Each structure stands twice: as C-alpha cells, then as structure tokens.
C-alpha cells in the first residue's frame, strides 16, 4: 500500500517502486523508493545528464578556471547562463564557456588535435588564466579521444598551467549524480595534495557541497570569519582551482550537500584522516546546530554561542514575522535530491510550513532514508518524478507553493500555484540565518501574490445580469 501506483502510471507500472506515501507506524526497513535507477524513456523526466553534473554543478563554479568542453557546441551552450553562482572576482565563471566545437571530420578522424589547439588558444586568449578543466562529452567519449594525454601534452608545453580532466559523458550513469561522483573521485585522486596552503589560523576546515548559489558561500564565510576558522577550500562555491588542491590540509570537512560532494569528504577521511561532519546550512535551528558542532570540534564553544546569539537577535524577529503568516502553508519540493531532506524539517520547525510532496531528480536511496526519517506522514516521496505524475500529485495534495526549477514553475503557474526557484533561488542567498529569512520572504511574497486571486476569478461570473445576457 505505501508504495503508490498513480493513475497516470498504469502503463508504466514499474514506477510504483519509486513513489512512497509515508504512513504512521512504518519505517524504512519496510519501504524505501528505488532511486538512482535508469529512467523510463519517454516519461518526460526532469533529469539532466552526467556531464552537467560535473561541469555545471561543480567544476563550472570555480572562478579562475577555463571550462573546456570537448564536444559539439550544444554541451557548452546549454551549461552556460543556467546557474546563479556569482563570485567575488566579477563572475568570470558565469560569463564564459569554452567548446572545441567538434564537427563531423573530427568525429571521423579524432578530436585530440582539435582539443589541443583549443586549449592553447584559450590560454592565449586569456593569458591571466592558468587553470583549466577539460570535459569529455558523449561523442568524444564514444570515439575514444584520450583527453588525459592531451592535457599532459599541454601542461608540458606550458609549465605554468594546470589542467584537470573529467571523463564523464552525458550517457554515463542515470543522471547528474554520476557526474558529481566522477569529478569528486577524479579530483581527490589527481589534484588534492599537490599544493600546500598558507595556514593563517589555528583552526582550519573545508566547506564541502555548497556552490555559492546567490552568495550562499559568501554569507556563510562571515560566520567562519567571526569564529576565526580558516576555510582552506570551498568545494566549490566562489573557489579557486588551487584552493581545492590543498584540501588535504584541513582539520575538518564540513559537508552541506552530501549528495554531490559526500564522496570527496569520504575519500579525504580515508586518505588523510580528516573527519567528516555533515550539517544542514538552511534553517535557523539547523544552522545553529551546525555552528555548535563545528565550535565543539574546535573547542571554541563560546565564540559559537556568541555568534548564534548575535544572529538570532538580528534575524529571529524577522523570521517570526513570516512564520506567523506562513503557518499551515502546504509546500512541495521538486528539486535535485538533498534539498528535500535539508528543507522538509527546517521549514516545519522554523516556519510552520507543511511539506506535502517531494520529488528528487537524482537522489540516491540514502537521500530517501534521510527525507523519510525527517518528513511527515501523509507526504509523497517521489524518485525521478515526471510531468503527468506532478499533475496527479498536485491534485492529491494541493500545495500552496512549489519549490522547483523555472520551467516547472512556468507549468504550475497555469494551475495558479506560485513557484519559488528551489535550485537558483528567487532572491537569495537562502543559507544561514539571514538566508532563511530571505527564503521565508520569497515564500510569503509568492503565496500572498494578489495576482493569484485575480487569475482564479472569471469576471463574467460577477457581471450584473443584463450585462451577462448581453455577453452571452
């Protein structure tokens, strides 16, 4: 019973294994949605590809690095102008994208020379940039171009540059998730440990799995500054390439997004003995808890408590103003995966919001264990949800607001349901104390948008009788 076969899925009954309706008294020993499994063709899934998981989500965030995409033009075009991750150096990473612009002759005869030439050109055109990531794509992987060999050659010719290669074509794995994995493992194996950082503080850490969406990283950095903790590397929000080569020197790895970056934290623990501390950076309660744990690790509890007290004094009244008005709001979350479990309890505790349905594009079963443990009974937990399922779920749970991407947002707009950008945010940052007030504000402004009432009104229904007759 708790696994649900929706009406729209009667022709693809295997979808039943992916949709769970939590019922009181059950637990994850009995039911856990299948996740990170192949998508059924033609279902209008929301998933992207492994290449984008590596380039768009993680590597492309680096603010000093050329992103050389070895393939036809579309892979570059499509992973450009689709993210909101600024940086403190003028947003280099959002302004540019590079492609080897593979054409048919290169497919036939091999694209390695083209790649080599494109790499040299890129460094020549932007002489101040000395770092590069090269990505394979579907066709260059299929024809077997050896991008590692080319990268080696270019590094030999240019001793002042460093190049990382990421062999993660779009068809690898079942979703973006595969790309996260390939980049994480490749980076820790090939690049971590070959630069020594300048240590400027007694306490050091890496902050892993945060991509500076609308300034998240920069906001949280204020906290670490106040605590006197040196962040050696942000993986990868507002980060430099070389920061990430020095990750082995941190005393602690603090992990926000365990899905996209848990791998590197695990490997750093295995290889260098750096402990991994998972926290939630969204929500008051969670952020305070995270700061307490980090402070306890370093033995700076007083500083931690002072910071929390200061932030609470500043932001809690504002949060409570919104909580008063958001109580009882029904929210759906249709995002990548981790934000389901990061948000479901934080919006409940901090804002009185009930999360009634959640869909994950690329979460694994681990993510479902987390979210089902934290989420409510009566809520739907969906892996790799598709468009017809969304319509049906909306009918079943009637959310007041949906946190999802802009395209689905445009779709649900027609159903008079406001959306808030659950990936890139509306007006963030959303992390930290200030950030969660921003989230609350955006949710409030979405729900109380007067246009929603107008959209639901048919002016003909309120005409006086003679005018109505005339209209008919």
């Amino acid at each position, binding site marked *: 019973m708790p696994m649900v076969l929706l009406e729209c899925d009667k022709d693809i009954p295997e979808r039943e294994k992916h949709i769970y309706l939590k019922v009181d008294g059950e637990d994850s020993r009995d039911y856990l949605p299948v996740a990170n499994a192949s998508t059924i063709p*033609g279902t209008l899934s929301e998933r992207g590809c492994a290449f984008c998981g590596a380039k768009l989500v993680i590597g492309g965030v680096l603010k000093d690095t050329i992103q050389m995409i070895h393939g036809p033009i579309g892979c570059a075009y499509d992973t450009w102008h689709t993210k909101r991750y600024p940086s403190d150096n003028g947003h280099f990473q959002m302004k540019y994208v590079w492609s080897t612009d593979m054409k048919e002759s290169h497919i036939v005869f091999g694209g390695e020379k083209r790649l080599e*030439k494109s790499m040299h050109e890129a460094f020549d055109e932007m002489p101040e940039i000395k770092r590069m990531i090269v990505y394979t794509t579907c066709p260059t992987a299929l024809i077997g171009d050896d991008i590692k060999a080319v990268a080696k050659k270019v590094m030999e010719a240019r001793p002042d540059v460093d190049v990382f290669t990421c062999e993660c074509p779009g068809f690898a*794995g079942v979703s973006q998730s595969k790309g996260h994995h390939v980049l994480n493992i490749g980076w820790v194996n090939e690049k971590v440990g070959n630069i020594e950082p300048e240590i400027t503080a007694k306490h050091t850490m890496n902050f892993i799995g945060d991509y500076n969406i609308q300034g998240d990283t920069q906001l949280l950095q204020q906290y670490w500054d106040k605590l006197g903790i040196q962040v050696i590397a942000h993986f990868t929000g507002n980060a430099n390439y070389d920061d990430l080569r020095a990750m082995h020197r941190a005393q602690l790895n603090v992990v926000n997004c365990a899905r996209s970056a848990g791998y590197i934290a695990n490997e750093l623990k295995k290889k260098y003995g750096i402990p991994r501390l998972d926290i939630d950076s969204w929500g008051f309660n969670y952020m305070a808890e995270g700061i307490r744990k980090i402070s306890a690790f370093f033995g700076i509890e007083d500083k931690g408590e002072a910071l929390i007290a200061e932030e609470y004094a500043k932001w809690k009244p504002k949060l409570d103003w919104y909580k008063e008005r958001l109580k009882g709001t029904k929210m759906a979350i249709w995002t990548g995966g981790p934000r389901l479990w990061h948000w479901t309890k934080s919006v409940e505790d901090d804002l009185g919001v009930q999360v009634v349905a959640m869909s994950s594009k690329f979460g694994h079963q681990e993510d479902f264990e987390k979210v089902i443990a934290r989420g409510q009974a009566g809520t739907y937990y969906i892996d790799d949800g598709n468009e017809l399922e969304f319509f049906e779920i909306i009918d079943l749970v009637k959310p007041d607001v949906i946190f999802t991407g802009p395209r689905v947002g*445009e*779709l649900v707009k027609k159903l008079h349901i406001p959306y808030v950008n659950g990936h890139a945010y509306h007006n963030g940052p959303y992390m930290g104390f200030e950030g969660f007030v921003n989230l609350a504000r955006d949710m409030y402004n979405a729900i109380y948008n007067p246009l929603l009432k107008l959209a639901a009104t048919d002016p003909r229904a309120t005409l006086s009788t003679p005018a109505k007759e005339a209209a008919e």
Partner: protein
Amino acid sequence: MGCEVTTRERAGIINPMYDCQPAGAQYAGIGVKDCIPLVHGGQGCTMFVRLLFAQHFKENFDIASTSLHEDSAVFGGHQRIEDGVLTLVRRYPELRVIPIITTCSTEVIGDDVEGTITRCNKAIKAEFPDRKVHVVPVHTPSFKSSQVGGYSECLLSLVKSLATHKAAPSGKLNLFPGWVNPGDVTLLKHYLREMGVEGTVFMDTEDFDSPMLPDKTIHTHGRTTVEDLQGSANAVASLALARYEGASSAQYLQTEFEVPAHIVSTPYGIANTDAMLQKISEITGKPIPESLIRERGVAIDALQDLAHMFFADKRVALFGHPDLVIGLAEFCMEVELKPVLLLLGDDNSRYKKDPRLLALKSKVDWDMEVVCNADLWELEKRVKAPDTRIDMILGHSKGRYVAIDANIPMTRVGFPTFDRAGLYRHPTMGYRGAMLLGEAIANSLFTHMEYTRNREWILNTW
C-alpha cells in the same frame, strides 16, 4: 572603406552564439499541435533545451528523452526509441506526432532510426488500431551545422513525412517564416488577413504566449496541425522568409509537388516588408490594402523622429541567426544606423555568398566586417579593442556581459532574450516590428545617455 568578410580563425569556441542542431529541431517540433518530440540521446540534450525555451518564453514545453545510458552506447539505443514512443503514445492519448530527434551520441552509435520507426508503427497499430501517430525521423547530429540547421532539418523532415501526396489545390499560401517569435507569427497572420489571403504559417507558434486562465487549462503548444503539414503539398505557393530556416522545405515542396517556392529577403525593415507584401500580392493577385499602407506610414513616421536625430552615424554590432542579422543590418541602414560588425555563428559556407550580404557590401561607404563561424569572443575582442567604437549592440541575451562589461547599450533581439521581459510577444518582422525595434534601440540609447550623463539634457525637450 568597404566590407570585409572574415572567419573565426580559432579552432575552439569561447561563448557560442548558437546551440546545436538538436536544439533547433526541438524548437521546430514544439510548433506542431499534439506533438511531443522524442530526443534520442542523453537526458541533458532535452533538459537544457526545455530550460532554454522556458527562459525565453517563460513557458513550459513538453519534450521527451530516450534517456540514453551506457548500455545503449554499447548495444545500441533502438529499444529505447521504441520504449519511448510507446510510453508516450500510451500516456498521451491526444498525441499525433512524435519526431525522433537524433543527437551526436546516437548518430555516432549509428542507431537505425528508420527501421525502429517501422517497428514502432507496427506496435502502435497493434495496440491502438484506431489511432494514427506519425513517428518522424529527424537526423540532427550535433557535430553538424547548428540550431539554425537543426530547425530547418526538423521542419523539412516533418514536411517530408506528412506531406506525402498531392490532393485538390487548397489555394492557400505556405508561409515559412523561420525561427521567429509568436509576435512575428501574429503579425504575419494579420498581414495575410488584411490582404484576404488564406495561408498557413509553419510553425504557428502564436500560443507560445499563453494565458493563465480561471479554469486552469494549459494552452501552451504549437498550432500547426497534422492537416496543415499534409496540406502543404496542395498550396498555391510557398513563401520562405528565411533562407536558412525553412527555405529547404519550400524547395522540397516545389520539387516534389510543384508548389512554386519563393524565397524573399527576410522581412526586417521597411523595404524588405514591402518586398514580401509585393510578392504575396504577385502570387495571389490580391492588392496590398490601404490598412497596411497606413501601418507602414505609422512605422516610417515613428522612425523618422529617430533616424537623423539619434541614429545617424551610430556604429552597431549585430549577432544572432543569419537571416536575422542580415535583415537587421538592412534595417539599420534604412534608419541611418551604421552596421559595422555582423557576426554569423556557424560554419555554413553559404552565408558568404548570400545575395543580401553581397548587396550590403556594395552599399556601405564605411568599414564593415562580417565574421562567419563567429563566437561571442569575436565580438568581445573587437569591442574591447582600443581602436574600435561600437555604440550599440543588437543581439540575444547570451551576449549580455559583453555589453555590460564594456558599458555599451544593447538592445535585445533574436533568440534567446531571457534577460528582458516579454520580447517574444512583439514582432520584429514587418512594419510594426521595425518600428518597435527602432524604438527599443532609441530607448536603450536614451537610458544609456542618462546613466552615463552623456548629453542626457538633449532629452529635456525632445
């Protein structure tokens, strides 16, 4: 003095102007009613293109993927086409057309799309004897051409697959406007109506600008029907408004069904619109009505206020689709703007020989450069060069940072224009389009004058 045609010399691209072929094919595909394109490739090839359309139109469009994974790369992906088609047919009872759009990966793997479609047809017939679903092969490897060619290829494949025989003449005119906005389609339909000409616009994207309704129904979809495509063979003539985005379909209908094909200059600006209307008049025998002369007059009247006062000698850089860029360069010259830099963004060798470009070359008495196979780095480098002066950039949103960083006013035009509100709603073609674009350019210049305190006091009394 004169016009120089150059080509990007670098192998690689920094900041592309166009997306790849499958993206263009998807744009043509969503123009058809009761149609969900099925893109045969990795999921990103669909997901990002849907996002791109959503960014531009602020609407959702349904496009499916065969979700190609490793096993298909090894064993072939034909089964995923078949599964995808049947899943779509089963779950979407209204569905009538499924273009199978290939990508680089599936073309490299070499999946037999045509053979698979035969199997799909059999399976659909067995399961749904009362339904006819047209499954159309569209070969668009990403390593050839660009979104421009992909649009053209998908349109041609749809015409070829659906317009299979000639029936009684319909007297209708086929209109192939190319990759344009809903606002352009509305304008073209208005022109046909004013002239009393029956016609079909391929693709009819008017409903890409769709409402929020009290009953919550969703109407965001193409309006070109199966019958429209089938009937294209019976038309009185075809008029292609874009040489690179639809002319091949007009030519096909001429070769195959003797529907006369006319390729006119893309109707950007006054003279090109005149020529289009004259051609319609010539084909149909219907005169250009007074109402359109009045619209023309309103546009010229508005532009007259801008040209020699504000536009004259302003040096303009243009980038975007080839038919758009060339057409807008012609428009610029009508209003005394000086197109000095034209960027065309793929390796199509025909651009260099485009008669409109050759005519421009003979006309300009200043230095003009046309860069073929260009990327936006070509634009950025020239804009940054100390000896260059660009006063205005005309192009789509992907070039926004060139303008922002160089502090040059930019007017958004073309596809995509996601960083400005509502542009898809307005025409760029026709008299009205020329007027609206001219006014948008003027307003960009005015705002820039104010923000840079550059003779902003002129407008104290304009």
